[in-house]
């Protein structure tokens, strides 16, 4: 078996374990920030195990099929990234996964799930430009869209792409579903949006959504690592610091309106993302 395939398969096996652990640690740190003790680090795994024991209740026939394909394409996207494939293909595959998730909520058809779907759609529209600018900038800096080429690039990419990195960090808050941009779904069912996107999902399908989120967390952090791939220890440090900052942001900010999320993401993409691309273009006489 080739290295790429092993890498992709080990993502499939280990990413949920790592993602679940990250989620457990996240909950502990969050609890400490709020002056609580917090659940055991393995609590996310217990939660998912318990969800899998529950009855599979649905509001609309066939709504779970969309969740199946959401998880499937999330895993597939991560495999593409870890197999060192084309970065654009990874992004498109991830978009497909998000579309399945949004359609699942549309299919759920309760008012809360519909509001969640619309808001998630706005968020995707908000962060998409920044992600694509990141891919374009990686290409300009390394001459390739292939992750396998980007990762072995000798230059520390953060030095060429500081704007892209900051911009990506900004939208990472949306992707990780952290406050202030957790406006399409929430951890607390008593708020204005109930559970948004996931309102109509219960038991095993909710467990699948949780696992998909673990997978996503892992490959998003892997994306952060790409900026520092030339110096692995720095990359690992950056991943830890970034995630810690996301937890901090999550605890410091109250939920924002969608206007703020979309406008600011587009502005960030235009200034930091496009700005960085423009600077690279001028510097390199591309």
């Amino acid at each position: 078996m080739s290295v790429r395939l092993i890498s992709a398969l080990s993502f499939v096996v280990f990413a949920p374990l790592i993602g679940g652990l990250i989620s457990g640690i996240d909950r502990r740190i969050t609890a400490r920030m709020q002056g609580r003790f917090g659940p055991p680090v393995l609590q996310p795994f217990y939660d998912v195990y318990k969800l899998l024991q529950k009855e599979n209740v649905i509001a609309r026939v066939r709504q779970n099929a969309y969740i199946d394909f959401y998880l499937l394409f999330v895993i597939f996207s991560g495999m593409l990234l870890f197999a060192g494939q084309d970065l654009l293909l990874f992004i498109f595959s991830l978009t497909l996964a998000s579309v399945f998730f949004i359609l699942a909520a549309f299919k759920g058809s309760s008012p809360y799930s519909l509001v969640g779907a619309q808001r998630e759609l706005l968020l995707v529209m908000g962060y998409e430009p920044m992600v694509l600018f990141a891919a374009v900038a990686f290409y300009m800096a390394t001459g390739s869209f292939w992750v396998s080429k980007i990762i072995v690039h000798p230059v520390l990419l953060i030095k060429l792409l500081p704007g892209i990195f900051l911009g990506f960090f900004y939208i990472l808050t949306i992707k990780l579903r952290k406050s202030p941009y957790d406006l399409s779904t929430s951890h607390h069912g008593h708020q204005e949006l109930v559970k948004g996107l996931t309102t109509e999902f219960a038991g095993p399908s909710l467990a699948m959504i949780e696992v998909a989120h673990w997978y996503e967390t892992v490959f998003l952090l892997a994306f952060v690592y790409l900026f520092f791939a030339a110096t692995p220890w720095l990359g690992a440090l950056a991943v830890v610091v970034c995630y810690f900052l996301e937890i901090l942001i999550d605890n410091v900010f109250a939920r924002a309106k969608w206007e703020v999320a979309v406008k600011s993401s587009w502005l960030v993409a235009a200034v930091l993302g496009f700005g960085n691309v423009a600077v690279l273009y001028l510097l390199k006489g591309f």
Partner: protein
Amino acid sequence: MLKNDTGRRVLVISSVVAIGLLSIKLLVDYYAATVVYFHLPAKWIESLVFPAEVAIGLLILGMCFRYRRWFPALLVLAQSGLIAWLEYFSTKKVISENPFFLDKFSLIMALIIGVVGGLIAVYALGYMKVFQEDYHKEVADRRGMFFLVLFLFIGAMFGIVFANDLIWMYFFWEITTLASFLLIGYKGNKESIDNSFKALLYNLIGGLGFAGAIVYLNVRADCADLSQVLDKNPVTISLALGLLAVAGLTKSAQLPFSRWLLGAMVAPSPVSALLHSSTMVKAGVYLLIKLAPLFKDTTVGYVVALVGGITFLVSSFAAISQSDAKKVLAHSTIANLGLIVLCAGIGTSEAVWAAILLVVFHAVAKCLLFLCVGSVEHALHSRSIESMDGLILAMPKTAWMMLIGMAGMFLAPFGMLISKWAVLKAVVDANPLLTVLLIYGSAANLFFWVKWMGKLIMLERPSEELTALKLEANISRTISVPLFSLGFLTVAACLTFPIMSAVLIEPYVLNVFGATVSMTRGNLIIMVLMLGMLLLFPFNLEPKRKGRWMPRVVDAYLAGVNYDSYSHVNSLGGISKNASRNYYLEKYFSESVLLNAGIISTVTLLVVMFLMGSKI
């Protein structure tokens, strides 16, 4: 011209089969040829082109007088005057040596026109019957004229893609203008007439540009043929190039000329499908793609690329705020043509490869969507996307085809996404700054397509109520066969595109640019894998045996006392039904503001182009 239904049916279907088979036979016979020139069977036919043009001009003039529209009349007189001067008074008229030609790009176009155009004609049989007999009884039944013009239109498109002599191309070009004018005005009410004249006006501006370019090329550059033009140094003929670009931009409904295509949606749906997919707008981009080698690194090319990019951005944004299904489709067409124009303006081998892919995939998926919306409009008596909730149960066949069409427009691994991907790569290599238009426009595309898809699958009414509507009970085969064929083609095009690319597109690009591109094998395998997974979606994989994971349907959560899954008991003890509406964000994506901004910026660009071009 047959009046009786069965006779018309036989005639139309047999003509469609003949056209389809002939375009396939053409492909089989000539797929190996690079360029083949040919003459018409008799010389005297070639001398008829000018009188025929005069006849078209007179016909349009007649219509202008009848409806008292003077501006189009002036344009007709101006361009006929130009051509007449060239034909009879100028000593510099160059006689074309090779009036017609055929290369791999024209073969691709012929295939699109023949197959997609043919399917539209078949669909029109069933559609127009319902249109006349049930839906629009007030409209005079002129179906004989309708089908005559429809086939004239398709014929003229073949003419455009096989014409080498610019006079001939201009002749067919004007026929498409005339045919679209007649078809858009089919309903004969004030709105239709107004919009048909709007289309006429814009297209005549383009026609004037074309005529001006022909005169300039004959007099100043000794060119009569497209192939001769392509051999010229673009700098020496930049004025003609600019005029041809204007002709291409008007026909493909780019800013600042895009309003005519938005107005054209008053026409019956098959006409919209025809205008948006296989004919008309594709004639515009065909010309621009043909000229692409001359656009590379020239002022005209930069302007064309920018106009295309701005059109993509503006139209994608404008589509967000629209709830009229046909209008969303119209904006999306203009946007995607903008991408093609952007590629043509860049004019690299990579960009042209991407542009041709876009032409093919867009034709199939957009045609499917227009025909579906036509059927839905007849069933629901509304074109509003808001009325399409639960369509997946009310009209399952049509709704699935629509979902396939929409997925084909923007999702991986379907055609348009493959093409957009190629466009992004081509744009990054040519000028990364242009990616900004592409990237924001794509984000908007995602938004308006997904919320529409969501509307089709959501269920805010009991499923029994929806299925009891029986909206698809007596759908005729002339309607369902084209829909299913196009749905099949949308999916099949993704699987067969590597072959099409290797046999037709890459050799064409190689011949024109001396270099070509294709997708790497690894990426192809991944795309096929994704498609394979997606094809599993329609199958129900949920456990059917009783067990813990067998789904149990309960009421949706309504934050109160449920009456059923769709309505709740309100505070007065009555029953309130759930109702939701998609987000349209009119405040931020107002169509008029966006279009005005787009028109101002593109007009400025075009003015700059002509000022800079005229210096040389």
